[in-house]
């Protein structure tokens, strides 16, 4: 791709017209500034977004978020909507870590009221209570029947049947922690076996639990609605559906790859394999994907409950209900939504739903401000809380970005800094680090990611979401 192949069509909006390549069905729209765009032009990122625009039934335009980077099939940070009922659904448009997402917990603690020893103890005890997944078992053993209920009912099953959380946790979770249409019989035994012992575990890679303080408020009204104030201690949880989701995606990518010819579908990349949403394969995938999404919400529910128990144990004057879920959002998911009276299946691969105000799915106290969105930065930098805008609905299928976005490979990051050195650097900044391996730490070094400040600014200027608060970490726990 060359810069001249893209037209600037608005502030921080660029477009590849559908005439650019014969197999494109709709334009490819990219939200970025010139610097972010230049990084995207360096690899296959934009070509991958263009490939997505060839999917049968794709509607409107495919969208690249400001943190978009090269993936496989879909780029990470790509959004595509396909017309229902006969447009395709593509498992690769969701990814292997189905419903990877983030949950933000707000505590009544203030950072200034904690001495360094208390802060370190808080981080340490959370690290002890949230398994990374390197051990054999998570905190919950599930019989087959119970696992099926998790898959069918999502996090509300853990709250209502197991007492593992509060009713408010469910209310403040996207889709109330349960995607409809989930059918455990569409999930393979291998997938269930991979995930069975992993509920309540973080996983490795870029998954984390971060202990933070609110260090800046941009939008006082929205921050107040979310119950966020400067100096407040928050905990951000990033994890997904673990091995269960990985296997669901593996199973259905393979199945659909074998059926492409039967549906007369030709693709520029096999990893985009897909089937009409109304076909048996499409319906089965959506039912299995919903199960994996429900598993992921349950996973973050259990991790959040572990954090709540640590906070109330270390600080006995804190009541469980004071450790609140601000919101929980998915960033790898496909959901049927309605735009301009038409039903579409919105694929968000490394992108977050960002509904503007008044959507009835949100809790009533967020309907005036828009849906909370979280953009985790890298270790040692900041994360952002944002709120969805009506313009996001109009411009990007109600979506915004999901993080800062990688700019360096893991290998390159490890060549640049050793884990022990990075650990010392972070600790010198007052950040307590808990990570089982130095190599795993180095792979996620802050310089391996784009500048989150720039990404958040572009998101706001492009009308995809507006900044509400910035969070600074003082504890990082990695799998």
């Amino acid at each position: 791709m060359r810069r001249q192949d893209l037209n600037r069509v608005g502030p921080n909006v660029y477009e590849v017209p559908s005439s650019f390549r014969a197999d494109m069905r709709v334009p490819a729209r990219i939200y970025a500034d010139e610097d972010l765009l230049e990084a995207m032009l360096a690899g296959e990122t934009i070509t991958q977004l263009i490939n997505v625009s060839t999917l049968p039934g794709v509607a409107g335009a495919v969208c690249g978020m400001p943190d978009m980077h090269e993936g496989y099939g879909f780029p990470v940070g790509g959004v595509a909507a396909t017309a229902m009922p006969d447009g395709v659904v593509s498992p690769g448009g969701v990814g292997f870590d189905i419903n990877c997402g983030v949950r933000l917990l707000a505590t009544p603690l203030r950072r200034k009221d904690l001495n360094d020893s208390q802060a370190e103890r808080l981080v340490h005890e959370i690290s002890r209570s949230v398994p990374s997944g390197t051990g054999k078992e998570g905190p919950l053993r599930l019989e087959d029947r119970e696992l099926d209920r998790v898959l069918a009912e999502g996090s509300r099953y853990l709250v209502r049947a197991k007492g593992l959380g509060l009713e408010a946790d469910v209310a403040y979770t996207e889709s109330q922690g349960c995607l409809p249409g989930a059918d455990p019989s569409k999930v393979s035994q291998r997938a269930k076996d991979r995930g069975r012992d992993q509920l309540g575990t973080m996983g490795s890679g870029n998954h984390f639990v971060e202990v933070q303080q609110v260090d800046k408020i941009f939008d006082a009204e929205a921050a107040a609605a979310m119950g966020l104030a400067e100096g407040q201690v928050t905990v951000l949880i990033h994890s997904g559906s673990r091995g269960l989701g990985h296997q669901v995606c593996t199973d259905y990518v393979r199945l659909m790859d074998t059926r492409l010819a039967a549906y007369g579908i030709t693709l520029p990349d096999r990893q985009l394999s897909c089937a009409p949403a109304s076909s048996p394969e499409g319906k089965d995938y959506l039912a299995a994907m919903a199960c994996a999404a429900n598993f992921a919400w349950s996973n973050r529910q259990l991790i959040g409950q572990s954090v709540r128990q640590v906070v109330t144990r270390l600080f006995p004057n804190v009541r469980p209900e004071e450790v609140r879920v601000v919101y929980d959002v998915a960033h790898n998911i496909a959901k049927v939504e309605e735009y301009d009276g038409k039903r579409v299946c919105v694929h968000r691969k490394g992108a977050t739903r960002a509904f503007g105000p008044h959507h009835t799915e949100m809790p009533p106290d967020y309907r005036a401000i828009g849906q909370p969105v979280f953009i985790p930065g890298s270790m040692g930098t900041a994360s952002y809380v944002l709120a969805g805008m009506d313009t996001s609905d109009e411009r990007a299928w109600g979506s915004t970005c999901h993080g800062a976005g990688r700019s360096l490979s893991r290998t390159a990051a490890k060549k640049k800094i050793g884990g022990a050195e990075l650990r010392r650097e972070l600790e010198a900044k007052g950040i307590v680090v808990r990570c089982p391996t130095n190599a795993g730490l180095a792979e996620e070094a802050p310089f391996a990611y784009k500048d989150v400040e720039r990404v958040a600014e572009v998101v706001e200027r492009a009308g995809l979401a507006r900044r509400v608060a910035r969070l600074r970490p003082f504890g990082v726990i990695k799998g």
Partner: protein
Amino acid sequence: MRPVSRSEEHVGEWKLTILADTPEEVFSEAARVVSRECGPTRGEPGPWEHIALTARDRETLLVDWLNELLGRSEVAWRAYDEVREIKLSDGSLEAEVRGRPVTSWRSPLKAATYHGLQFAREGQRWKAVVLFDV
């Protein structure tokens, strides 16, 4: 010559290249690569386990083989580093594998993908390229 595997640069995922004298050795080396990622092992290998796969071509078989080993490893907590009795055709694969217990699960590998998949003769050797989601 011994099979060789090496990592290629990829900003978000893990791109692996394998070079070997025969297609069968590519599959054996691929198993060893996956097993090395699992984490530290201890104890004796378990019993030999039989794997049979069918697919439309050899490169698809390679992805299916890798995903079979990834799933099997994660469920059993075993690093399958030993492979024998490989019978490979363009559309099917049979093999026996066995592995040692993993003491601490470290694998970042979620799945092997079809993206940019290659499997072909290059000079005197066979070359395969696979991208993993990590």
